[in-house]
């Protein structure tokens, strides 16, 4: 199915840059864009420029005092102590010049995407600069300054009054977004992630289900370290189909962190490119089944910026713009341009070789455990078969 889709991009996104040794590197956006262009999958008319989110828009979710602190930090006028109280100036979210503007552009990109889709000018829209799901109301954390998803969902609730399904497939728990809507029955959040036993942020247990009126509208599927494609997809697809049929959203927002791959240095999941093909294919189906196609997709984590993220995010766009993934060899032009700069050998094909994944001895136990978690997750939504 060919849908009208927009790809949010501007070089302003590349200014969200902590320092050379930091794992969060928005060069991924450039690599993805160039990969798509080399593959003739991204036409110039599909590009949508972001705007800078206004303070009032940021304040839909963030505390004004926090926004002010980010602005001060942005021009080097925030003291170390004040900064630490807001999570600014830590190893995870160091202060850098222009951080307010850079972050506000990422949020504005997501808001532009929302507006294009919800005014009917485009069926789907993708902002790979967004998906910064660890940002809190008054605290930066986990590489995230402003939480574009939380701001955008508030924006949708206020401006369009639609019910939102937020789906987070980053290997880390989507905590910032979950807590933002923990008591809200009109926003359903679903996060699949590596269990927090070892991995940041540690939360995202299956029993975190929401509070007050929002009880039953937060879903968490923590999967074991070293989970591979088959088990991941089995539990993920079953869960999402069930949750979507339970909630019947008006619009779907997906956070597409690409850090569940076995090459990713920060997590312990063992996926391959197949995950990043099946995830958008299902999101696309759900968007058309329940939301008249209204789907806003965002980026997120992804720390192997050479071998994993460009291919994963390019396939996401391929599904959004063409309804299908691409097979075969990567364009030579892209490989030859970037191989010299890449510290690792770039993959030759869109798909991964089966030997990419190491042999995991506990595979059977992991699969069984994930299935048990799935059963717990769907305890209250599963329709009872007569």
């Amino acid at each position, binding site marked *: 199915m060919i849908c009208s889709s927009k790809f949010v991009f501007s070089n302003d996104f590349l200014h969200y840059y902590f320092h050379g040794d930091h794992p969060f590197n928005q060069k991924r956006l450039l690599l993805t864009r160039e990969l798509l262009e080399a593959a003739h999958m991204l036409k110039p008319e599909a590009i949508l420029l972001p705007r800078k989110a206004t303070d009032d828009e940021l304040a839909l979710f963030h505390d004004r005092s926090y926004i002010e602190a980010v602005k001060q930090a942005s021009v080097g006028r925030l003291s170390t102590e004040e900064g630490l109280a807001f999570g600014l100036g830590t*190893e*995870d979210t160091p202060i850098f010049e222009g951080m307010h503007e850079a972050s506000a552009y990422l949020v504005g990109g997501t808001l532009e995407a929302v507006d294009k889709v919800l005014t009917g000018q485009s069926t789907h829209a993708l902002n790979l600069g967004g998906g910064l799901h660890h940002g809190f109301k008054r605290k930066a954390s986990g*590489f995230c300054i402003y939480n574009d998803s939380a701001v955008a969902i508030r924006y949708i609730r206020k401006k369009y009054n639609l019910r939102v399904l937020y789906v987070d497939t980053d290997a880390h728990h989507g905590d910032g977004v979950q807590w933002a809507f923990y008591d809200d029955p009109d926003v359903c959040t679903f996060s699949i992630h590596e269990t927090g036993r070892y991995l940041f942020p*540690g939360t995202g247990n299956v029993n975190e289900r929401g509070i007050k009126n929002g009880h039953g509208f937060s879903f968490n599927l923590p999967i074991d370290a070293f989970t591979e494609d088959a088990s991941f997809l089995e539990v993920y697809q079953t869960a999402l189909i069930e949750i979507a049929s339970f909630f019947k959203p008006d619009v779907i927002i997906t956070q597409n962190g690409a850090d569940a791959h076995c090459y990713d240095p920060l997590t312990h999941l063992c996926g391959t490119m197949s995950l990043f093909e099946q995830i958008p294919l299902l999101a696309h189906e759900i968007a058309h089944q329940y939301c008249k196609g209204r789907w806003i997709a965002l980026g997120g984590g992804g720390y192997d910026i050479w071998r994993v993220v460009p291919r994963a995010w390019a396939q996401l766009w391929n599904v959004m713009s063409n309804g299908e993934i691409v097979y075969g060899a990567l364009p030579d032009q892209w490989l030859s341009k970037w191989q010299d700069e890449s510290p690792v050998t770039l993959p030759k094909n869109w798909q991964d070789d089966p030997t990419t994944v190491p042999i995991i001895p506990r595979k059977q136990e992991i699969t069984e455990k994930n299935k048990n978690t799935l059963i717990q997750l769907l305890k209250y939504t599963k329709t009872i078969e007569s």
Partner: protein
Amino acid sequence: MLVEEIMKTNVIALPPTATIERALHLLHEHHIRHIPIVNEQNQVIGIVSDRDVRDASPSILNTGTSSRELEHEIQTIMSQPVITIHPLDFVEEIAKVFYEEEIACLPVIRQNQLVGIVTEKDMLYTMIQLTGTHVQSSHIEVKVPHRPGILPEVTSIFSKRKTNIISVLVYPFKDDPDYKILVFRIQTMNPLPVIEDLREAGYELLWPNNLEGPKQ
């Protein structure tokens, strides 16, 4: 940590003359499992559990009979004497009381007055707080020789990386008295630099242990 920091102070109690039916009602209404019984001076003279009350209630199979049992006074079924604790007791100590006495609730008494209550559930909640698993963090386990000065040596590696420590647990390494396991929860999404530094300094990591650096 002291009992007064974790106890609940709004205690639901009953006089000895209250009916069993009243107790049953309170247990349901407040989702609790224990009710201390106090006299007019607010002194604890007994305690009832949900099981005591259930045992004293008419069987649901016996639908024909009247429920006169429920009209009996609560003092006829309460347990006594009651094991109690003091607000200045240590939480670690009362964990032992729970374990040894096989009970699930302890009234807190100061100057012979009921001032609070601690349940097994409060105790577990406190344990969760102590492990630090409820806040944003990454988890690292290090096996170290059991000798003086080892903790500051390891933690200096975290401080060099400006990494905040959320919690530290020290526990035995299997049955080997020469080693300990240090479990750190640290406030970072990127534990890799710390992990590398720990390896470089020669420490053995139990988690992550599969990886020689990034996992490949």
